[in-house]
């Protein structure tokens, strides 16, 4: 009976195991827009000393957070801020900037019934952005380091990536301590792009990823039996 039960457990464990040992996993995805603030040199995009901001909506949650969110009753938003340009490279069509460490990234939950609906408006910061994207409960937040942004003005597209180390938020406890040093990445799509409101620079589509769980190691049959004594 014990042997049959153990074999059943092993069979069910095989069904539950992912197709491969993931070394990084999807945490959440988002879409939004970005803008400069402060925009110290309007004639130069992301000059040294200028600030970079992006905000918008969370569009999907991965398995770590999905059980603890409810998009029917809540609005989920994000905001990356305190990102100041430190290094600047531009060759006439390609831009690459590096930001001062650390910046900050936060994700929010706001009740649709009692909260305030987030609105982009135009020419941010404005009456609703970022204020209506950063009210509600911080469900996750972290410092952003080594953020790099590149943009090809010939192709009107670019991207950013950097580390994000989660250290706050109501759902922080749902991410194991060993998996909180993740990274964030996004694609940028600039004009001509009819979706980008006046005063914003690019449309954003991106996500956060975290290291996967520790993969299983080889065990002997004796070691496995010892777990159930």
């Amino acid at each position, binding site marked *: 009976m014990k042997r049959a*039960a*153990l074999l*059943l*457990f092993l069979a*069910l*464990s095989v*069904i*539950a195991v*992912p*197709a*491969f040992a*993931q*070394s*990084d996993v999807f945490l959440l*995805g988002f*879409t939004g827009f970005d803008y400069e603030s402060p925009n110290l040199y309007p004639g130069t995009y992301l000059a040294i000393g200028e600030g970079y901001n992006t905000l918008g*909506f*969370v*569009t*999907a*949650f*991965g*398995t770590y957070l999905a*059980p603890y*969110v409810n*998009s029917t009753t809540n609005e*989920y938003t994000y905001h990356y801020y305190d990102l100041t340009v430190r290094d600047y*490279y531009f060759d006439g069509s*390609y831009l690459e900037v*590096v930001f001062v460490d650390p910046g900050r990234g936060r994700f929010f939950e706001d009740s649709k019934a009692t909260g305030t609906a987030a*609105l982009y*408006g*135009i020419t941010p910061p404005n009456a609703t952005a970022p204020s209506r994207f950063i009210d509600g409960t911080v469900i996750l937040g972290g410092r952003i380091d*080594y953020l*790099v*942004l*590149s943009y*090809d003005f010939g*192709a*009107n*597209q*670019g*991207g950013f*990536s950097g580390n994000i180390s989660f250290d706050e938020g109501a759902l922080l406890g749902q991410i194991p301590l060993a998996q909180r040093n993740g*990274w964030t*990445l*996004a*694609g*940028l*799509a600039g004009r001509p*792009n*009819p*979706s980008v*409101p006046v005063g914003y620079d690019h449309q954003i*589509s*991106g*996500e956060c*990823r975290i290291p*996967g769980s520790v993969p299983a190691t080889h065990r002997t049959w004796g070691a496995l039996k010892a777990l*159930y004594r």
Partner: protein
Amino acid sequence: MKSKIGVAAVVGLLATALSATMATAQCTPEPTYPGVMIKFDADAWAYETAYTASTSISAPGSQLTVVGLVSVFCNPFSDLNPADPNTEYTFIWDGLTSLGTVTTPAGLSLRYSTKYVGGGFRIYAGSPRNAPTAVTLPALPAPGVVPDAFVDGTMILSGAMDTLIVLYTRTSTGSFTTASFRADYWATGGTLYDRVGDAINPLTGAWCVVPQSTPKAGTCTLPAGWSAHPNGKWDTPITVPAVPSTWGKIKTLYR
């Protein structure tokens, strides 16, 4: 012993049931702006016939295919639910022929640019839910699953793309990678074609390449055979107003 196994079995089944990402309907475009129409997040991946992961190079003539699951529907598809347990919304991009990756030094970084031509897309509503997700993604080849599980059901929308441009940069700062894709699309068919028509619109997003060796920020580790994980969206055609609009307002967008 029995109680421990019972708990372990329940936990295992629960983990399997929660393996799909949860779609959230965050569709609030700024008035008079079109916004996102269809988005994909965790569950989208690319593979090619002639791509070398260790160098991130796509050879000329390589055939690119992208498959995935929709995570969000917005106007004019807000009535569709990507989390419907009985209906799975999948998509495929295919017919994309690589013109070969061109690398260009940029300061201390290296830029990679790949153009793919001749592509199209199809979006399906199928049942039962049988496509792999990020948690269950198989290595390639996966006959009978990839791309089969992504092209079953009713084709609700199909279309063509102009040149798909994929850009990524390996930077000198800790070798981080920034990557993106962009193309213009227009619908050509499908049972829901009449909702969008054939206006040209952007299809854009992040393109997370598999690491050349060790994982780094901006890369995504995937099972063998896959080349990248895109995260992006089809935008709503400008001719489909998200809110009531006037011809005068639409014209101002292009001045």
